[in-house]
């Protein structure tokens, strides 16, 4: 079982570019905006670094959805 039972157990990985989307997520925190706790942000130097395997391996390990922002 997933160690996180919240959000009906769903887990979403958000790959974010450190220059924009990651910084934007920080700002969203500063502004106390809300989004589901299922989202776990993973910082990348650039979303161009992301490859298919990183997406597929995450899905294979049981992650429910992937979001890419950058």
């Amino acid at each position, binding site marked *: 079982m997933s*160690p996180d039972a919240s959000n009906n157990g769903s887990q979403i990985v958000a790959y974010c570019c450190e220059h924009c989307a990651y*910084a934007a*997520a920080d700002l969203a925190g*500063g*502004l106390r905006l809300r989004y589901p706790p299922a989202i*776990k942000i*993973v910082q990348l*130097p650039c979303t161009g*670094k992301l490859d298919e395997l*990183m997406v597929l391996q995450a899905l294979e390990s049981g992650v429910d959805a992937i979001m890419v922002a950058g």
Partner: protein
Amino acid sequence: MLEEKPRQSKSNRDGADPIGAVLVVGGGIAGMQASLDLADQGFRVYLVEKESAIGGKMAQLDKTFPTNDCAMCTISPKLVETGRHPNIEILTNSEVLDLNGEVGDFSVRVRRQPRYVDVDKCVACNDCADVCPVVIPDAFNEGLSLRRAIAKRYPQAFPNAYAIEKRGIAACRDACPAGQRAQGYIALIREGRWQDAMRVIKMDNPFPGICGRICNHRCETACNRGLVDEPINIRALKRFVTDKVYAEPRPQVETAEQRFDERVAIIGAGPCGLTAAQDLVREGYGVSVFEAMPVAGGMLRLGVPEYRLPTYIIEREVQDIIDLGVDLKLNTRVDDLDDLFVQGYDAVLIAVGAHEGVRLPIPGADLEGVLVNTHFLRDVRLGKYQNGGPKIQELGQRVLVLGGGNVAIDCARSAVRLGREVHLACLESREEMPAHEWEVQAAEAEGVHVHPKRAFEEILGDGSGHVSGMLCSLVSSFSFDEQGGLHLEKAPQSEHTISCDTVIFSIGQRAGLAFIPDDAGVGVTGKQTIAVNPNTLAATRPGVFAAGDSVSGTAFVIEAVDSGHTAARSIIRYLRGEHLEPAPKPDLPVVKLTQEEIDARMARGEIHLQPRVPLPELPVHERIHSFSEVEGGYDDESAQHEAARCLACGVCSECMSCVFACGVKAIDHDMVARDENLQVGAVVLAPGYQAYHAELSEEYGFGRYPNVVTSLQFERLLSASGPTRGHVERPSDGEKPARVAFLQCIGSRDQNHDYCSAVCCMYATKEALIAKEHDPDLDVQVFMMDMRAFSKGYQAYFQRARERYGIGYTRCRISALWEEPNSHDLLVQYQDESGQRRLERFDLVVLSVGMEISEGVKRLGKRLGVELDEYGFCHTVQFNPLETSRAGIYAVGPFREPKDIPESVAEGSAAAAAAAARLQAARFTLTREVTYPAERDVSGEEPRVGVFVCHCGSNIGGYLDVPQVTEYAQSLPNVVHAESNLYTCSQDSIRHISEQIEALGLNRVVVSSCTPLTHQPLFQDSLRAAGLNPYLFEMANIRNQCSWVHSDDWQAATRKAKDLVRMAVARAARLAPQHTVDVPVQNTALVVGGGAAGMSAALSLAEQGFPVHLVEKENELGGNLRFIRTSLPRTGLGLDAGARAPAKVLRQLREDVLSSTKIQLHLESEIVASRGFMGNFTSTLRRADGSREEIPHGATILATGGEEYRGPEYSFGEDPQVVTQQQFEALLEDIPGEIRSVAMILCVGPAEKYCSRICCSVALKNALALKERQPDAQVTILYKDIRTYGFKERLYEQARRRGVVFMRYDDDHLPQLTRHEPLALEAWDPSLKRKLALEPDFLVLSMPVVPTAQSRQLAGHFKAAVDDQGFFLEAHVKLRPVDFASDGIFMAGSAHYPKLLDETLVQAQSAAARAARVLSRQNLQAGGRVAVVDPQRCTACLTCVRICPFSVPKISSSVTGAGGVMGAAVIEAAVCQGCGLCAGECPARAIQLMHYTDEQMYAKVGALITPDTIPVRVSLGD
């Protein structure tokens, strides 16, 4: 260990050498750029910024044109880079006072205003702002939202620390003898924080309930709100709070700990004595209070009538002091002062008050029925007259009170309540009575008969020794002499009798000082008060102090409190053996608002008329029959309503809420301004602009009409971090607007501004376009005179806005607008292009405000002695465009002329080059380097992870279970230690992490706190300090991306924090150390192009001490500069000043280049190949004779220029009367006969597609030159827009004044050449709506500048990019305007984009500065987060070569690839940017990005679902 040490000692510098430091004024984008370029080149930089954070105007912007990049995303890395640079010292809240000396050796005095927050301690947790009660308009949001008095300027601000805004001492506080922070507790009442308000009051006053009732409230007289309507009812608010708090059960008062042996005796338990007792006991001294009466409270308890001050309030407040541990001795009269010392007291405070009533020495003063005020009031208070009390018979039915002061009124009103007929006679007139007017009125309302202007002659007796009346005269005038003697003039024959049976003297009180023996050594004044030093309240005998009424004579309770505090402080100093005189305190100004400021704030809608909320009062018929309190109190709602009227004049009220809230003790309200002296060799001024104050153009209603906003406000409305989180809303009602109008040129191109602000057309277009992206249904109309889209990509951007986004542009200057009062909609009247008058309604109007120089900057200019023009813009030399009138001081950015970000950035770099050239001998003399201990080799060690979980005050700990997360972290594999910290980033925690690494042998560290974007470098430092490689570090962002966004769900936030920590630990266990290696730098430059740009870049580099190869394909230097005959006058007035100047510049540049020993000139030569990377290029030169030479160089500047387009348009090339502007300029030098008329057509040929920037100005320059020589010549200019940006606008104005005819055309109505010899031209005049025929002698075509064919080829050799037109493409259009994306290659001049001569010279210097940044280093650091190729897997497929935006990967034929085939990719670590694109794309997975390897990333993501159960066992470092 972490000390910063100079790389070379300062002693290397002998007297003649310049100082290797530069002062940069202004922390906006231009100032930051200058600072970075200087610091990187080995100079120490002092960056002075007047705000509390750097970032300037750009930080306020939402997006930037023409790329629509997020402004904050692009500027924040610069903020971090500037902020963390070891050689940049940022001085915030600072201003330059003066400057002495000369270039190379300036002495600068800088005033550092207090921030009241220690930047080194502040962890920016926001706890202080959460409790600050003071709200003010948020300047960063242009007043569209409110912020607290303590704040960070904006979320991403650097320094990442809060600052307190203090304007001074609020008038109320200043007026209060005890310094009550009224503004503070009023603000807290507004917020409904009763207990906090009470705390603020009690900090300065132990008697809030008492003062809330009987204080004479001088604060209200001083209150600035009185200038608006009525002062705040401060006293009633104070009473309100005490009533609220006292209605609650009384909390136990904790006894203060006695920490010292010394004991103090206080004589008198009145407000003064008790205040001192409180202070001394709290400080840790033993205190005994001796009170002669059976009750404590002094005059409050025994002098003030119950109807004004209920006994329970006094008892409560007295008890709160006694319970601190004061030894109160009631009924204990001190008869002998000396005896107290005998008893062992170390100091004595005399605070006996003034309880002795005074009788006038007139006949009858001893009759029965004559009383004195103090005894009467005391007896009333002790109940001796009421309800059959012992003295009830002594009081007659007709009572006459003698005296007109407040005590007399108290006597009279008390007598009324005892059912007597009461008269009051006094010396003064009714108006001059010393009692407060409201007291007299209340007395009269209660039936007291006042007899003013009476002299008291004799008290008449009834024969049995009892009073029967008072013989009086009328007073015509009176005065007191210096000794207090009365001089009276009575009206003749005015004697009369007021009949009465009781007389109460109330003409003054004095202290009873009989207990002081004559030989006690304590002096007494003639007024029967104790002689003291007014500063220390020390009496003439050491150890004896006196305070309160016994020193001052009768005063008010708040003065007694103040006196008590002062005495206590003196006594403490005395007991400690310190100097008695108090140390001087920081002198804050008192805030007195002027009527003008009030009016301005009202005009801006910040203040509205709102009278005082009235207080309930007991009706007269009820109050005269009892001693019940007359005045009622506010209820919650009316109190908060009244409190909300406060103007918060002081801004910070020093309520100290922040001090209580701050967990790292970073706040210090006692900080003072201090002046600092800096020694610098040069100065760069980048103070920036201020937006035009739109309220000055009253016709547009800004400030009056809520839905009229400025463009900067609109920028904030669009911003996701702005007041509406990026939703455009109308300020009047928060509704989404459907129609928005932009009004251009507000504060530009008008009667008061003869210049164009250069950016407004584009930013309005950008704001319109972004608003449309937010809401595609929005209707946006822009009203403008010309569209000034004059730079790279601007024209296309404008066309996109109009055509793709449907933004309407109307050529019309709006002269006024009106508001529809109910809807707050705005009505705009204008004439459309068909000439039709139209009236349109808009929901929101945006005023595109122009740039001005602020008064503060003008004063700065004067103080520094640099010449400014009438608008305050800085004069600079046209052909040395950044140098001010004072050598060694450079001006950049809009301070010189209105301009956009990229020009400002380029100028910042260029100023760095100019300063560096002056100071190059002192490079690296004052720079500092951080040193760390040698790195520990952790290879072969099992991972030992330490996890540090941060509470961040309550920011994390308040929303999720930090102890549980910490415990969980401890259970994770590889974790050997987990702990939580209140603030992990505080200085002591940082040190603690280093200590733990060493003590526990940690070799990986995970910090679970905030964001790595701001805090990672800080934590990495703690690893380096402990000898650990900084790459062995990982962060879990459990604040910004967890506690803050899930603050409503404790369980879910805690679970997510655990997930994030687990993921971080999984990656951390697999992290490997990364090392950088030094790659030596070749410090020679290559400059390609021998025109103005190339020559000046080469010269700038040579002056900075670097060898330069200058390559020119022609056989002479000069480029396009050879064809420029006249310069563009800066002001547009007086052409002669600049005539032939370009030739002088050319000559000078040529001579300097030829005579420079550092420049090796290669004429008739071309670069045909180049290889290598930043710091280590090798380029191949081919000479005219075909010979080749390989040139090694570290940096490259491409300055190959542009050329005037020469196409077939308008029969150019066929008809000799049709010429280009360049040809016409030459022709003007030697005019062939008379020219009757000239027609000029602008925007010819490719200029239809892009704006060539310079043509309008050049055409106007030439038109004016012709008019100068032949004033009667007719000049007609056919144009689409006149784009004379900045001061070039003056040329346009001048041309119109000189009679140049301007005729607009558009793409649908191009001018037609209808005949040759003589020329005939037909053009459509849109205003006349008819065709006009022209017969000019010459048709002059403004042909655009186009890139040379060579540019594209050359760019190819250097793997540098060009745009659609073939111009060089900069790395970032705003922030890296002269850099190519490929490192180490820079551009200058028209090969980048058409530009005027002064712009070219600036850009050349800018490119030189950027190149010098590389050349000045001995080594480049290579490695760290870089891509590494495994050649065994590489098939040389070119994917990486093609995808890298920085052209870094190369295929090397000498490396063996997969399968043993020769040829594999090589990635040079020194220039790899670490983005990882190649690693992501490599089909063979032959490339790994270090620190983001597949293994590390899979582990991190995999741990989200499947916990890492098996400890990693890795051998590191192999």
